[in-house]
């Protein structure tokens, strides 16, 4: 470590100590900022010490990181990871600076969730052993543009390290682009026979074959543009899977039971997208030498998983709050609600601040129409852009329904709903506002993941 890096590390650690011990703030961004100012390459010294694994993609990287951390801790004493909000360069620098190593025998692991646009910068500093690719869906297009542009940004980081292993979701055709020379580990679904021949629904992105731009067909689909794809014009098809979900046993809104390569696993969270996250965690675990038994153990530990959903009791109501931010995610939440065998109500909340995505047009690609065949008994809409959602649900034939522009009205509104089960779909800032209300009224006591 150079003298400059040493000083930068010292400043970073000192700032963290003050923030953490004196001010009781968990901030990792300020120490990173200060340390980077003194030495922009401060992180490089960590590249030598850690096995670094970067997890990136538009959806699922937080939960994949959480589950993978749990999996790796079955074998490694030191697995450092970043809090979900700190997935840019500065937050990651802060995470590295404040890490401590306890086991001197075994190489520690740095398992880092990285924002798609920060992959190149972070990789340059930390020289990853592996890149984990979850998926790329249309999301906050106002930020990075297009799914191919987003993937290009990730590729720039991977291309710097042709020796690093790419652990990729093979069900997502976009990851077959780029002709990467890297060693690969592919994971995906093989839960039904590959006998069908279908095309993706019409509001699906990324369905063109990378070879000749023909529209891909699928033997079966899971969700979004994911599934067992093949070309009808040439021999392009999904690659052979190293690790596969081979059976879906029981899916409920709060748990998923499934087989990976014939062995049964359970996670205490619903939604097909979370099975993909668990499968990614499984693939990384196996890559790092964790056994299938240990992974089974890690998944079934009782610790609650804080994903995009959270269960809250409001008097006698069982409320599930789910974050929505793009059509693929919203459709997954809609599919998850369909696995509920009890009658339920839905409140949908839409804000359009920067953190929510300022373009609300994606709500028209969310398939609210499909909820008509379920146990849904009542709907309501709210948030700063309540009118957009109100008209969306009206045009989906849910008729006139209550609207709550002010989120202070939501908690009282929950109590008047006709069902015990209540799903609240909310964009990021709407969710924060709602949680603040629930906290103030004593229904929740901690922050998400606090």
């Amino acid at each position: 470590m150079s003298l400059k890096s040493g000083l930068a590390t010292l400043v970073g650690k000192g700032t963290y100590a003050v923030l953490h011990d004196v001010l009781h703030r968990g901030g990792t961004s300020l120490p990173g900022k200060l340390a980077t100012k003194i030495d922009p390459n401060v992180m490089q010294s960590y590249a030598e010490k850690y096995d670094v694994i970067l997890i990136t993609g538009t959806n699922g990287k937080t939960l994949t990181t959480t589950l993978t951390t749990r999996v790796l801790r079955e074998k490694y004493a030191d697995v450092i990871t970043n809090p979900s909000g700190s997935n840019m360069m500065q937050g990651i620098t802060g995470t590295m600076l404040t890490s401590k190593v306890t086991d001197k025998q075994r190489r520690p692991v740095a398992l880092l969730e990285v924002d798609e646009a920060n992959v190149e910068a972070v990789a340059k500093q930390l020289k990853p052993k592996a890149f984990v690719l979850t998926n790329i869906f249309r999301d906050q297009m106002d930020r990075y543009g297009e799914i191919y542009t987003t993937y290009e940004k990730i590729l720039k980081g991977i291309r710097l390290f042709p020796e690093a292993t790419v652990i990729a979701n093979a069900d997502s055709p976009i990851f077959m682009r780029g002709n990467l020379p890297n060693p690969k580990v592919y994971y995906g679904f093989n839960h039904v026979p590959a006998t069908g021949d279908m095309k993706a629904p019409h509001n699906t992105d990324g369905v063109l074959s990378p070879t000749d731009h023909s529209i891909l067909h699928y033997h079966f689909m899971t969700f979004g543009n994911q599934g067992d794809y093949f070309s009808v014009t040439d021999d392009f098809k999904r690659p052979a899977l190293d690790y596969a979900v081979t059976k879906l046993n029981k899916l409920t809104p709060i748990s998923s039971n499934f087989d990976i390569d014939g062995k049964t696993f359970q996670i205490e969270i619903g939604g097909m997208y979370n099975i993909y996250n668990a499968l990614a965690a499984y693939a990384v675990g196996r890559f790092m030498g964790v056994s299938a038994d240990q992974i089974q153990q890690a998944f079934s530990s009782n610790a609650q998983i804080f994903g995009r959903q959270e269960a809250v009791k409001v008097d006698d109501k069982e409320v599930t709050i789910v974050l929505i931010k793009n059509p693929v995610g919203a459709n997954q939440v809609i599919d998850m609600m369909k696995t509920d065998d009890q009658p339920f109500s839905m409140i949908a909340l839409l804000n359009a601040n920067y953190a929510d995505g300022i373009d609300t047009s994606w709500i028209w690609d969310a398939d609210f129409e499909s909820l008509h065949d379920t146990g849904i008994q009542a709907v309501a809409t709210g948030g700063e852009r309540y009118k957009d959602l109100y008209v969306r649900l009206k045009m989906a034939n849910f008729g006139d329904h209550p609207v709550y522009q002010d989120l202070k009205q939501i908690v009282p509104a929950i109590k008047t709903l006709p069902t015990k089960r209540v799903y609240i779909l909310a964009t990021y800032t709407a969710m924060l506002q709602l949680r603040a209300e629930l906290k103030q009224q004593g229904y929740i006591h901690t922050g998400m993941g606090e």
Partner: protein
Amino acid sequence: MADYKLHTAHLYGDLMNTYGDFGNIVALRYYAHQIGVEVDEKIISLGDDFDPTIYDFVLFGGGQDYEQMIVADDLPDKAPALKQYIETDGPFLGVCGGFQLLGQYFLLADGTRVNGIGTLSHYTLNQPDNRFIGNITIHDEVNDLEYHGFENHQGRTFLGDDERPLGKVVKGNGNNGEDGGEGLVYRNVYGTYFHGPILTRNGNLALHILQLALERRYPDVDWQDKIAAITPEFF
């Protein structure tokens, strides 16, 4: 109760639907149902034929640059049929990329020139390192109506002499950020950069297009009163 039916074609709906464009058909269908009119939808994609005599409404949405180039390669095969549809007053809504591709050509962000079907006279230039992004309000001076939407485009479109803008920009950037116009009107063709989607947020425009389609398909029915009884959504 549906005695009447409208056929809509969603041009390249499996490739060019990046911004909720399908909402435009949802809106049309929602209003049509209220007066007993069924609206169906067929995707016309790569290699498919477009029969200009079948359809009552065509939606051509926006896409990503990559998909847009694949579509541009396929379009020459459909261009004569689309031109026939347009010149026989077929109602048409082109959004963003679909609006650009109706014209002469457009330039991608990297300067690559992509030819449109050339049926209409507008053309689209690029603007390096900038996009027009945000909420937009325009005023349709012909019908004295205000329209709300969200624009997100890199291209700068300039209309030909035989085209007029859909509205005058009140707030936002519009076609090119220079001449104060947004969108285009040519016969029954409407072009716009609104992702909104435009017909869900601007019920009056949806009803106007619905009326054009119904009067063209069923000229013997008086649609004016039926449509006037519908309450348009506007936000």
